[in-house]
């Protein structure tokens, strides 16, 4: 089993994606059988058929669409804030080298700190409302945007900067016409990472403080011991997260088509 021997002769005509889906379906089928035959208690794991059947009920009765919009709104608000403040902070740090030297390691350390654990503190400061969730998402997602903005600005090709100088561009023109467009793909990597962190933290805090959109839905259903509904809601959140990441990835590819 090595990299060279990775292409097995028997698997040449079978699509890997098909095998992945088939494996998932077989696993679900086995789980269904084990639960129906009482090898696994249905009070711990509901049968997959029951989970699938509860999707419609959860979507209609639990107002999933409006909850989704609420979570999306919180994400967008945090996203706008972290884009504005993160990019501004990164540009400032790139412009003022002393500030960059003094603070870059702090920002990197902030990225490693489990900021989400300060959510009780945010609840005290902002109250148990959407602002706690938005600010939590914002602060937890800020470091990658700042760091990637600094990286993007610093890696602008010298020749582009020289072209700007040869045209006698003002510092503002140099920034808006040369530096910022050149750094944009790297900055977007930071924004993408930031948005992913923001979504993770927003859904997580919604679940923990039992307030808001999709995170609260899972908590509500779990507290009502609606097992099939809980599993269905978790599947729904996973689906939304995956679609969100895919959309961000597509946007990033569109921004940097060469890579």
């Amino acid at each position, binding site marked *: 089993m090595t990299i060279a021997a*990775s292409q097995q002769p028997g*698997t040449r005509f079978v699509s890997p*994606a098909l095998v992945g889906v088939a494996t998932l379906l077989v696993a679900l089928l086995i789980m269904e059988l084990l639960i129906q035959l009482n090898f696994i208690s249905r009070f711990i794991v509901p049968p997959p058929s029951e989970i699938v059947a509860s999707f419609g009920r959860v979507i209609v009765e639990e107002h999933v669409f409006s909850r989704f919009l609420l979570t999306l709104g919180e994400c967008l608000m945090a996203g706008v804030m972290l884009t504005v403040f993160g990019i501004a902070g990164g540009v400032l740090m790139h412009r003022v080298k002393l*500030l960059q030297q003094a603070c870059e390691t702090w920002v990197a350390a902030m990225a490693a700190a*489990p900021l989400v654990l*300060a959510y009780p503190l945010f*609840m005290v400061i902002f109250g148990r409302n959407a602002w706690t969730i938005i600010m939590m998402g914002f602060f937890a997602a800020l470091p990658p945007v700042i760091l990637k903005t600094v990286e993007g600005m610093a890696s602008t090709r010298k020749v582009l900067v020289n072209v700007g100088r040869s045209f006698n561009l003002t510092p503002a023109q140099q920034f808006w016409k040369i530096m910022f467009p050149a750094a944009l793909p790297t900055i977007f990597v930071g924004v993408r990472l930031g948005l992913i962190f923001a979504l993770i933290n927003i*859904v997580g805090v919604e679940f923990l403080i039992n307030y808001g959109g999709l995170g609260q839905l899972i908590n509500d259903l779990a507290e009502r011991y609606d097992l099939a509904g809980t599993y269905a809601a978790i599947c729904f959140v996973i689906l939304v997260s*995956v679609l969100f990441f895919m959309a961000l990835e597509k946007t990033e590819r569109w921004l940097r088509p060469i890579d």
Partner: protein
Amino acid sequence: MATTDRLTRTAAPEPLVSPVTLLRIAIILAVLAIWEFLAHSGLLYRDVVPSLLAIGKALFDLLSHGDYYFNLGVTAAEIGTALLIGGVSGIAVGILLGANRFLSKAFEGYLYYLGPTPKIIFFPIMIMWFGVGPGSKIALGTLSCFFPVALSVAAGMRQIDKVLIRVGKSFRASTWQMITKIYLPAMRHPIINGIRLGLGVALIGTLLAETKLSNKGIGFLIINAYSTFDMPRMYAMLIVLFVLAIGANALVGRFGGLEGIKRT
């Protein structure tokens, strides 16, 4: 004939404190001064921003109390167990996916997209499966830790120098020998990097689970301080926790020699 001394360029004297250090000190002092002003201004609700003295006293009380170390031990044991289970299974799955292109194409996409989903939402399931004790916290930590380790190891596996693999095969190394003598040593950096990422998310997963439902551990202490509105104690615990988390992260990186890697 008049003579002149030879002109020499004298090096500028090194400042006693570098401008970077001065700026850092200035920022810290400014933040502390603003904090203290807010604490005494009455602009915010009382105790939301406690005075530095109160936080310092709470920090001292916290660190001089044996109960805190017991809870720290509980959390550390949960995180350690989660890291062990998640790390080992992540390395095994990573090696499997990295070594076999077909398996990678079939399953790695699931890991890639499931990796960044918020793991805390699985906590109700973990409670059903493993109960309300440490088991559910370890399970959540394991789940959080597994994905970054597996993805990092799979990516590292594909970057192994093919010459090393050919050397192993020319010596007719068995699969186990290939793993222990070639793959694992060649993948030291991706593994350590994965474990570092895994440690961070395992820590978050475990502690968040403790804040949600627990009667021991640091997460429990934090949410308990919130419930009793003991803000200085909460600040003290968050400060200690952040220092420990950042320190552990740096330590794993240093042991793995990640500091020496040129960042691209």
